[in-house]
């Protein structure tokens, strides 16, 4: 028996023993890599058992294989985790992480601009610069387990991150996020004076928009929030409002100011790209805004969540009927046990944000 066949049989036997097995609950395309920009190579029909071999860094895509009894691999590719039945049979903490594979194949993007956006990982790795910012923040008295929200109505949505404080999360396969939710969750019980409907990157610096009950006269919403909460991390989400009122150059100036003021105070600013529907008349403007965000993230080495790229596989790109706000699942808690992250914008937004917080907590050894 040739050695190659022997190895294949051995691999198949190993997979059958060790790799967890599950099925898809509906037909799903299987891709060459962990993202829809990778070519699709097959369809996985519901109910057909597959083994889970590895996952991407976020955990929202897994590589699955299917082998016949004689060890022939008949399927090998990536599917979104949210399309798989979760019955407790697999935990992403036990699945090997492929840390080298990219989240997208930008060469397959329709445009150069969108290719550039796809090239940015779904969540950043934590830079050495942020290690310095964290230490600086600690010296200034920033509270390591406190996260706050800064942004417009998409950020203000009470189902974005705030449910981390409820204690009734259903993580499903994302068991490895438990500690992170318990660590940061309580800090998200309160609202943020720097997150308000209608807020823009201009008015975050306008004292008129500050909460007069909590903020000092002349204090900006951003400065007020940082003074009150002393957060180690700020989840900054601007764009859906600004894109309607300013140029991408003006937006970049304002975002830089937010980042610089955060860094000056020892607060790690986590930026995020935002979703936009391709039919939106502001599509290209939004793409440019998102590109500016990725540039600022790279320039200051601050973390970035690439929600735009991740949301491309969601129905209506994760957006609600107004095409601006993200769609909610209807559940009040953090719930990843039934694949909501591939259906609803807020669920995906929460998954990526919590995973980014998880990356920060582990890398910076926050406790």
């Amino acid at each position, binding site marked *: 028996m040739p050695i190659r066949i022997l190895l294949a049989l051995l691999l198949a036997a190993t997979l059958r023993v060790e790799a967890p097995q599950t099925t898809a609950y509906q037909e799903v395309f299987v891709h060459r890599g962990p993202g829809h920009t990778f070519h699709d190579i097959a369809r996985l029909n519901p109910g057909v058992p597959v083994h889970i071999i590895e996952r991407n860094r976020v955990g929202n895509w897994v590589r699955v294989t299917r082998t016949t009894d004689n060890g022939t691999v008949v399927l090998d590719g990536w599917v979104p985790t949210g399309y798989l039945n979760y019955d407790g049979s697999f935990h992403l903490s036990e699945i090997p992480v492929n840390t080298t594979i990219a989240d997208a194949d930008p060469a397959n993007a329709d445009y150069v601009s969108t290719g550039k956006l796809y090239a940015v990982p779904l969540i950043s790795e934590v830079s050495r610069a942020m290690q310095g910012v964290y230490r600086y923040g600690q010296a200034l008295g920033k509270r390591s387990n406190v996260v706050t929200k800064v942004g*417009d*109505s998409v950020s203000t949505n009470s189902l974005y991150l705030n449910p981390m404080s409820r204690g009734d999360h259903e993580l499903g396969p994302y068991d490895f996020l438990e500690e992170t939710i318990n660590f940061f969750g309580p800090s998200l019980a309160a609202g943020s004076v720097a997150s*308000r*409907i*209608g*807020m*823009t990157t*201009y*008015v975050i*610096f*306008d*004292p*008129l*928009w500050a909460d*007069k009950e909590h903020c*000092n*006269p*002349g204090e900006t919403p951003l400065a007020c929030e940082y003074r009150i909460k002393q957060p180690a991390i700020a989840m900054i989400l601007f764009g859906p*409002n*600004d894109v*309607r*009122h*300013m140029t991408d150059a*003006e937006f970049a100036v304002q975002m830089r100011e937010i980042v610089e003021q955060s860094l000056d105070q020892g607060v790690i600013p986590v930026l995020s790209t935002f979703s936009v529907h391709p039919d939106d008349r502001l599509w290209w403007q939004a793409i440019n805004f998102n590109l500016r965000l990725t540039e600022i993230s790279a320039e200051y080495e601050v973390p970035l969540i690439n929600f735009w790229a991740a949301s491309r596989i969601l129905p209506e790109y994760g957006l609600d009927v*107004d095409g601006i706000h993200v769609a909610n699942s209807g559940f009040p808690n953090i719930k990843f046990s039934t694949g909501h992250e591939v259906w609803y914008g807020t669920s995906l937004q929460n998954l990526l944000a919590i995973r980014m917080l998880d990356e920060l907590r582990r890398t910076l050894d926050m406790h």
Partner: protein
Amino acid sequence: MTMRTILVIALLLSLAACAAETADPAPVVERYLQAKVAGDETTLRELLCLSMEADLPREVSSFASVTDARIENMACARVGETNTVQCTGEIIAVYGTEDTSFPLTTYRVVQEDGEWKWCGEAG
């Protein structure tokens, strides 16, 4: 020009200066807030103090993201002889279908070239 004419001119000039100094700054604040709500760049530029000149774009855009912004029950009065003007009332704006409000507060005014200028919130 006679000495008497010179004295009269000097008197008129000093009276004018006094008038400007003692003029009520409250209407300036009211005009400023109305202009801010309306995004009226010309008026804002006219009434904004020099030290806040760089903030003009922000002041003009403050209510760009909301609709139907308006001021309700505005009443402003100078606080004694200080450089502050206290206002009551609130700005109401609509975002989507939801009202959002901004209570008016106390503002700083400064005199520049004999004119009162709005100069941010009073600390």
